[in-house]
Each structure stands twice: as structure tokens, then as C-alpha cells.
């Protein structure tokens, strides 16, 4: 969404504008903040004790995804091959 270049004759879309993409980005931050803010209002009940720690699912999700992407990025260096790898020889 970073390159906003509507083709000639096409109407400009909302997401073509950089500031609107920024709005979406900061919107995710606001959503996360809200979901943490309402936690004291909800009676948290979990089968596993530490899942009731404050904001557990939030930080676990964030850390899990960052770790996943970094690990996958590292693995790609080992695993990647040219597209015709198996078609050779």
C-alpha cells in the first residue's frame, strides 16, 4: 500500500493515499490499546493459570508473531532454492 499510483482514468481509492494507510496502521495500535484497557472490566477466566495474567494473550500474540517472522526469515536463507530447482538435470 506504500506505492500509490492509480492508473490513468481510474478513480483514486481511499487506500491509495499515504495518510489513509497511516490511519489504518495507527488504528491497529488504538485497537490493541482499547483491548488492553477493557480487560479490568471483563472477568477473565482461563483453564491455565497464567493465561489470566494481565494482557497475556496480547503480548503472547505479539512476541509469537515477531519470533515466527524472524525465525522464518532466517530459515529462508537455508531453505530457498531457485524456482526451477527440481526441473534441472
Amino acid at each position, binding site marked *: 500500500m506504500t*506505492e500509490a499510483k492509480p492508473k490513468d482514468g481510474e478513480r483514486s481509492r481511499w487506500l491509495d493515499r499515504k495518510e489513509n494507510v497511516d490511519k489504518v496502521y495507527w488504528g491497529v495500535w488504538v*485497537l490493541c490499546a482499547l483491548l488492553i484497557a477493557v480487560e479490568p472490566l471483563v472477568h477473565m477466566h482461563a483453564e491455565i493459570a497464567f493465561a489470566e495474567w494481565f494482557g497475556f494473550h496480547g503480548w503472547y500474540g505479539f512476541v509469537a508473531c515477531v519470533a515466527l517472522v524472524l525465525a*522464518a526469515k532466517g530459515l529462508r536463507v537455508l*531453505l*530457498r532454492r531457485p524456482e526451477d*530447482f527440481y*526441473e534441472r538435470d
Partner: protein
Amino acid sequence: MSAIELSPAWVLILGGALVPLLRGAARAVWAVALPLIGMAALAALPMGEFGQFSFLGYELMLMRVDRWSVLFGWVFLIAALLSAIYSLHVRDWIQQAAGFCYAGAAIGAVFAGDLLTLFVFWELTAVTSVFLIWARRTERAYRSGMRYLIVQITSGMLLLFGALQQVTATGSLEFGHIGLDAPGGLLIFIAFGIKCAFPLLHNWLQDSYPEATESGTVFLSAFTTKLAVYALARGFAGTEALIWIGALMTAFPIFYAVIENDLRRVLAYSLNNQLGFMVVGIGIGTELALNGTAAHAFTHIIYKALLFMSMGAVLYRVGTINGSELGGLYKSMPYTTVFCIVGAASISGFPLFSGFISKSMILSAAGMEGLLVAWLVLLFASAGVFHHSGIKIPYFAFFAHDSGKRCAEAPANMLAAMAIAAALCVGLGVYPAPLYAMLPFPVDYVPYTGSHVLAQMQLLAFSALAFAVLMRTGIYPPEQRWINIDSDYTYRRLMPRALRLAARGFDAAHAHAIALAGGLGEMLGGRLRSGYGPEGRLARTWPTGSMALWAMVMLLAYLLLYYL
């Protein structure tokens, strides 16, 4: 006997065989009518056991109609209907005929009450479905289909060997709870495990599904693997090893999904990950866990079909499905974009979408049994599946940077199939009661509690935040034109190389042996020479001998590979 005559399996198999005789509108009407007739047949089936007869002294049971088989029968018929509508524009009759026979075979297997009937339908799913891959009519698809067929047939052979061991030891072919310690149990377990894409036995799935046609992959995504889940739930519920196998299955494919460029292959990896959740549920084996597995199989078949349909529509219109070449398609395919997002929200388990009401049962069951590590892995996988299926798929196809590609919206029949699937995803998510009422055990589970909803929303929102931050900082690995090697590397590269190397060594040894035999012949005279010399009988048998040896080596290699 009326139940046998009306078996939905035979409706689809025989009906599918008639497809080549029809043309144009007649074929379209027939294709939509067949799954509907199948549904009517299923609705009319009374619960119970039918079609018992003696075969070579063994008791067979063609139809076992109970809550498990009826549930899977329904969802298989729904999948057949969705696939049929989705493929209405296809003129190639092979795809529809093969698709219906494949769906019918899977339904037949689900209703099988004995292992021999199961085996017959098990193999029938393999030989019918491979045509959906070959229908792509490329060299690549042909080779991939061959590999697929070898793996599937191997699974069937192991099932047959296991069944024979069971019948030798117990005298019964009944397909009930088996367990690992039963005679033939391990062989049957591996047979199911191959079709269920257990870790290291999984790669046929990611290899072949993305090579099939647009419609073919939609058919394929529904049946084979969920038939295996069903079979595991029947035969191996409560087998502890399945908890760990399943946990591993949920986790490792998502690393591949993050770096994979072919978006249908990304979906194949996430399909593997979703199977992991079901396998964990089977391993836990409590009523809640098994209900969770059954419910998740049901919702999964529909949202996975929806995701494959949306990516198939992109492939059909744009001609490629590589993330590196797509982007900005929401401008050209707005409806497909919306349907894809519904599928993505469902697989991610957003509240009010179908994945939420089924996956949470499995997670709760793991938590209740105190399976801390497994629970943490499942939670990790839940975050990860949102990351790659929920965000990556729609983002790289429809948003991201504008690829400049402009195309028409998907054909009306594709949109109709996607709309029905999307409606089911939302419907089941908002109102799960009808699905819960169909589950194998009575349901005492409330998915929508404040705690559940908030926890899941936090998990998803922060996963989205991680994606957004990594994207904005440029850390997220861009889509690139690479393929990634997986366990298929062993049989597509290492084994052929090793065999070639062995062949060279074998040739050398062969030459030495002949020289030696010749030398001995010189010493021992003409009589020995006539028998063992270069022109002798033994030397003549070398080529046949080496052929037999080759066959044995290859068989052993395959067997070893699948045992490991």
C-alpha cells in the same frame, strides 16, 4: 437394504460417471443436482448398520450410519456442492467427473464399517483425485501427480497390511477403536498418518495441491485429509502420541507459510497446520476434545474451500498466484476480496466467524487436561495462522503494493460458490447451535464468554500489530521468487542422487565381478566357464538380478522413508 441403495456415496460416484455424457446446460444442472440428491439421500438415511455380508468368510459392513459418519457425510456433501458450483464454467469434463467420484469415494470411506471397505474407498479417493492434478496438463503437474499417487497408494497398502494383521490375529475386519498396540495398529496408524500429513509424511500435500487446477484444488482441499482425521478419530482417539504429533503439525508449517511465495502453497501449509489442531483433539480424546475435532473439521472444510476458491479465482483471472507478482487486486476483484477476507477471518478464529466456535473447543480441552506445553504451542499456532493465512493471503493478493494488474471480477459461478461458503462461515460463527447439535457427543460448551472473546481478540489484534510493525519497519521478508525445500527434498533430490551414485558403484562392482568370473573360468576350465563365465548363465542373469535388486532397494527406501 434401502439404505445401501440410497447411499450418498454411490449417488456421487455413479452420477459422476455420467458427467461425460452430458453437455452444456444439462451438465451444469446435473452437477448442481448431484450433491443435492446426495444430501436428500443422507437426510433419509436411518441411523444404524447396513449392508452386512460375508466375503471369503469375513463379515463386512458397507454402511455404518452414526453421529460421526453423518456429520462428515454432511460436510463432504456441502464441499462437493461448493466445488461443483465453483467449477461450473469448466468445460473439461474430467475435472467434474473425477471430482464427484472422489467426493463419493470419500463419503463411502466415511460410512465404511469394516477395514476392507475402508481400504477400497481409501484407494478410490487416491486414483480419482489424481486426475484433478493431471487436469492442469503441465509437465510439472504430471510429475507432482505421480508423486501424489505413489504416496496415496502406499498409504492404502499399509492400511491393507494392517487390516490383514488385525484379521489374522482377531478374525475380525471391524473398523472400530484400534489403538497403537493392537495387531496391525501401527501400520494402520501410519497409513492414516500419511493421508493426514503427519510431520515428515506431509509434503505430498504442499507438493500436489498447488499444482492442481483452480477447481481441482477446491475439491482436493476438502476430502483426503479430513477423511484421515475422521479415520484417526475412529481408530486412535485418546492416543497420547497424537497430542505431540498434532502440536508439531500446528507449529512447523507456519514457518514455511511465512516465506512461501505461491499463495495456494501458503494455504496448503496452513491446511496442514489446521489438521494439527484436529489431531491434538483426537490425541486428548475427551468428549470436549473430540467434539472440537469434529466441529473444527466441519468449519475448516468450508473456510478452507473458500480461501482456495478465492485464490483459484485470482489464478484464473491473473494467470499467476505468486505473491511477488500480485497486489492491488481489490480494485479489480472487490467481491473476491471480501469473500477471501471472510475466509481469512474464519480460519483465524475471529469471534462471529466459524473458526472461533470450533478451535476454541480444542484449546479449552487442552487447557482442562493441563497440557501446558501443547496449549502454548496451539496458542502460538493460532497467532501464526492469523499472521500467514489471515493477513498475508489477502494482503499480498489484494492489497500490498499495486502490481498494476487489472482483470475482470471472478465469473458469476465462482462468486456464487464463494458467497455460499462465506455465508456458512458467518452463519456457523454467529449461530453455532445447529452444528453443536450434530456433534458426536452432547455439547456443554459456551464459546461466547467475555473472557474467551477478549482473549482471542487480544491475541489477534496484537498479531496484526506485529505484522503492521514488521511491515512498516521493512523487517518482514518480502515475497520473492524462490521455492523452499521441504521434506520432499529427500525423495526428489537426495534419493535419486544416492541411487544414481549407487548405480555407478554397482556398475563398477558388476564389471569387477565379471572380470573375476572370467579369471576364475580361465583357471577352472571350460565347464565352469560355460556356467559362470562372461557368456555363462550367471552372468546372463545379472541384468534381471540387478533389476530385482533395484526394485527391492526402491521399495525399502520408500518404506524406510515413511516409517521415519
